[in-house]
């Protein structure tokens, strides 16, 4: 498993090539990229700054990946999350999961992203036409993570 928090952009093709290099047991690779939108809560977003809790971030994402590996057949997983100043169209986050079969890859990828949104210590501050503001946590994100709760 690989977790990286970085200011630099990422290249999904290069990352996937690295993840699957020389492993013929992989039958499925699922990925997700989050990107910066130009509109949030009705206001135009000029740019945003991402802050994180160094140390806890890496531990929490590693714990999320470990939980995914306990639930599905996951061969490897990669999460890259950018920090610093980002603009609309920029990539923010990448999740890649490799598995023998697509069902496990799809589910684990979505699970990792839903848990990352509600558990990993990142915060967004937006610069909008209406001024600067910290983004509020969304109820819909909690609901998305809640779907994975086990009885």
């Amino acid at each position, binding site marked *: 498993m690989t977790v990286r928090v970085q200011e630099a952009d990422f290249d999904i093709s290069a990352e996937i090539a690295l993840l699957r290099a020389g492993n013929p047991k992989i039958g499925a690779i699922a990925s997700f990229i*989050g990107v910066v939108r130009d509109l949030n809560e009705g206001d135009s977003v000029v740019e945003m700054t*991402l*802050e*994180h*809790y160094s*140390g*806890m971030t890496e*531990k*929490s994402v590693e714990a999320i990946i470990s939980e995914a590996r306990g639930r599905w057949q996951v061969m490897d997983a990669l999460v890259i*999350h950018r920090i610093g100043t980002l603009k609309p169209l920029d990539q*923010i*986050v990448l999740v890649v999961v490799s598995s023998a079969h697509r069902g496990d890859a799809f589910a684990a990828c979505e699970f990792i*992203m839903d848990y*990352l*949104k*509600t*558990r*990993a*210590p*990142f*915060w*967004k*501050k937006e610069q909008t036409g209406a001024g600067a503001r*910290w*983004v*509020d*946590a*969304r109820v819909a*994100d909690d609901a998305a993570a809640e779907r994975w709760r086990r009885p």
Partner: protein
Amino acid sequence: MITVLYFARLREVFGKASEQLALPPEGGAGAATLDSVRAQLAARGGVWAHELALQRSFRVAVNQAVARLDTPVKDGDEVAFFPPVTGG
């Protein structure tokens, strides 16, 4: 002493990212908890009392793991207060 960290909106409102605090004295109920630290900070009044009131939706961590207000805190711990997360 413990290290207390603040992030995002709380860091801005409090005007600091971190500070060293003497561990709150043990109460009748036993060892200090995150809630004793919270109460000690809230007693400063102003934005501290407002933001760290129990009905506010701040989050807490001890030694970089998600915690609750009844989580014990011991000397040398790293404690953090922050808003609900908004990454991804």
